[in-house]
């Protein structure tokens, strides 16, 4: 609208109106708005799809029948995309971020005790505060607590395998769990998933919604995983691998892994008086 205003003002004085001109549209009320020009419209940076797996990735066979084949229709962010659900501590229970205790029946689950922690950031580097992070995983033997999982490794009576956390004001989250085991799956007959933890993250707008998986530094199954290798960009793949973070480990108790998650960048805050990163 700024541009069209400038154009209107630069029209030479005395220019006559063409005979076939339509009646002028009613003046856009925003032209009288006292708000100064601002790049802060709250929209998200365009998603760089070259770092994401394509929908159709035949090496991951399940994608063949489940991948759209038409081009996606690109639309600019409207209020439908820059808004999203807001969660709070009322949505969570006190043990939700402790997978060692949140399903314990008669003792702790079997496995390597670990802490997973990191920040949820956006592409500008700002922390994303108060956003919901959900996670789920197999147990130490590679078995999921799910009625459709039939892997022969046993379920652990003391391990549910899911949890959630709300990031703090700086976008920081953490949880405690046991390290999941690798497991076989039917893609090729001898396909194995590297040990991984699934993550679901919301961000501040529905267009930032993301599900991904975290892997563990040094796992030899990483470079041969048919799901991981759907990612075409080597650096993007490496960013899914959490390093051992010895400084964050608890001596004589738990090792720690660090996993930062980056959501789409946001052009800005919605209100001048809100803290950055919202």
């Amino acid at each position: 609208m700024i541009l069209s205003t400038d154009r209107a003002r630069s029209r030479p004085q005395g220019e006559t109106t063409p005979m076939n001109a339509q009646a002028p549209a009613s003046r856009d009320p925003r032209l009288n708005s006292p708000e100064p020009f601002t790049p802060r419209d709250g929209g998200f940076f365009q998603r760089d799809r070259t770092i994401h797996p394509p929908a159709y990735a035949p090496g991951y066979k399940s994608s063949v029948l489940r991948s759209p084949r038409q081009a996606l229709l690109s639309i600019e962010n409207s209020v439908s995309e820059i808004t999203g659900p807001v969660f709070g501590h009322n949505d969570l229970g006190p043990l939700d971020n402790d997978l060692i205790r949140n399903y314990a029946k008669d003792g702790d689950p079997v496995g390597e005790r670990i802490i997973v922690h990191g920040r949820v950031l956006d592409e500008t580097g700002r922390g994303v505060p108060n956003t919901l992070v959900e996670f789920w995983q197999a147990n130490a033997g590679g078995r999921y607590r799910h009625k459709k999982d039939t892997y022969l490794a046993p379920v652990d009576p003391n391990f549910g395998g899911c949890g959630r956390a709300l990031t703090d004001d700086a976008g920081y989250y953490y949880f405690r769990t046991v390290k999941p085991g690798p497991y076989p799956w039917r893609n090729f007959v001898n396909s194995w998933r590297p040990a991984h933890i699934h993550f679901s993250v919301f961000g501040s707008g529905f267009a930032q919604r993301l599900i991904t998986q975290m892997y563990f530094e040094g796992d030899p199954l990483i470079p041969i995983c048919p799901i991981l290798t759907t990612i075409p960009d080597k650096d993007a793949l490496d960013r899914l691998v959490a390093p051992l973070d010895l400084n964050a480990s608890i001596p004589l108790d738990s090792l720690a892994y660090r996993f930062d998650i980056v959501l789409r960048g946001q052009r800005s805050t919605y209100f001048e008086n809100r803290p950055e990163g919202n």
Partner: protein
Amino acid sequence: MPQPLNYLKETASQTAGPYVHIGLIPAMAGFDIFEKNFSNVLVTPDAKGERITLEGRVLDGSGSPLRDVLLEIWQANAAGRYNHPADRSAGAVGEEFRGWGRAGSDFESGLVTFETIKPGAIVDRAGRKCAPHVNIWIVARGINIGLNTRLYFSDEEAANAADPVLNLVEPPVRRKTLIATRSERAGKVVYSFTINLQGPEETVFFDV
């Protein structure tokens, strides 16, 4: 060399896998763990607006329903207002309607249902009125990055015809893939939809 921009890169997406229920709907995985759970029921006793059921399936390239798919919906309230601080429109908003829910498909039939209210029309940032719609996000085994689509309502013909997003869909014959069909069943209003991942009726998916 110009100054470096130093933006970070978005974390790459990975499939939600077949066991997405464990983390997001543990009751469907077969166990009870959280004190509070999210669900497919968005409506609350105090929410204003017409009570509706959304009911649909997601079909793969063979026409078979996905039985392990998870859908989330995000919508405005009956006044056309999203329950989020970035929506600065005039409509009233309150705690009685969050506007978000999630549902897993039935393991046998593939049916996905939501109990919600019909959203009002929203105004986009150019001041244009947008037809009432529900935003949908779809994840499942075999889906490498969540799919974004929308549901519009069959009884909003005039609003749909003027909707700025529907009008971007080319060829126009594909617009109908975004429209849920209204019917009444035992006194309840049901909007039915089918999301086709592939094929001649492939649903329009958005890069938002």
